[in-house]
């Protein structure tokens, strides 16, 4: 059974891009366009093996989403990768404090995304 990666990003092109890259590498993909939608899907029973989230989203931002997810039962140890244009160290520290697993700066090269995904989910 391939691992499921949950992409949370308000950009349709980034969603599409990462989905295609991950699917081609054999992963299953679920998507949400906002933090709120992501929380709803997770509360609705979605159990991804990894979450990839943007930081800058309307409404609930990525950092808030990470905090919310970490507070939910069953998601304390789910890897959460931040993928964002944000590059300031202060924000990285904020993500780390919220218990994110890693940080990638957009635009993400396909090889980099797959390398990290396979590092976190070695069994695919």
């Amino acid at each position, binding site marked *: 059974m391939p691992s499921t990666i949950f992409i949370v990003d308000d950009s349709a092109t980034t969603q599409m891009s990462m989905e295609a890259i991950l699917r*081609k590498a054999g992963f299953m993909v679920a998507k949400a366009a906002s933090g709120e939608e992501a929380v709803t899907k997770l509360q609705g029973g979605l159990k991804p093996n990894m979450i990839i989230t943007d930081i800058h989203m309307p409404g609930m931002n990525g950092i808030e989403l990470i905090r919310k997810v970490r507070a939910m039962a069953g998601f304390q140890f789910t890897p959460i990768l931040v993928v964002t244009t944000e590059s300031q160290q202060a924000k990285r520290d904020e993500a*780390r404090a919220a218990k994110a697993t890693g940080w990638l700066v957009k635009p993400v090269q396909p090889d980099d995304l797959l390398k990290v995904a396979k590092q976190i989910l070695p069994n695919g």
Partner: protein
Amino acid sequence: MLIRIVTVALLLATTSAAATFAASGSASGAALAATGSLVAAAIGYALGRKDRSMPAAIRTQMIKVADDLAQYPAFTRLLRAQGTRITESTCEAATVIATGLRDMDANVDRLRAMIDCSAHIEADELRPLVDAVGAPVIGMLGQLQFQDVTQQQIAFLARLSLIVDQHMINLARQLGNRRSMDRMTNFKDMFDKALDDCVMTSQREDHHTAVGLDLHEPSGPKIEMY
């Protein structure tokens, strides 16, 4: 000029006359001359007021407005730099996508030619060419993220233009009401606040350059695992 000379002469003459009359004991003459002196002084004061180009408070305001306007090039420089970044990133993405499509098209042509020329082709013979057809897809998909990045850069430009709007409104108010000077937010403060919106390394570099700072902030690696 002539009026000024005449006024000064009149003032000196009447003052001197008043002193002379006073010294000689002529009270009425001294009073008359003193009155003339006062009239000359009043004319001089009125001329002086008329001759001043503008009151000091207005001059101060105009200098402040001019100072603020002089900072606009830093702002427009940032706008231009962002525009250049957008052009560069879209150009790079378009080039990669166009090159990928061209290569795919060329490989499809080769594949078609192989199929047309050979009656019996083994799957293994076709596989390398089929793989070559699909090879550019991943890179092209990765480049699609340019839309996300440029969208944020353009949103930043829109926020910058709102700062300019607000500042122009403030300047107009300042020119229309001298008491507004104390209330007006300094343009530099507004411009510095725009730095908070600069989330990308490139944006922060452009902002620092625009304000004349040779500052390069450490931005950390593109990939970081905690």
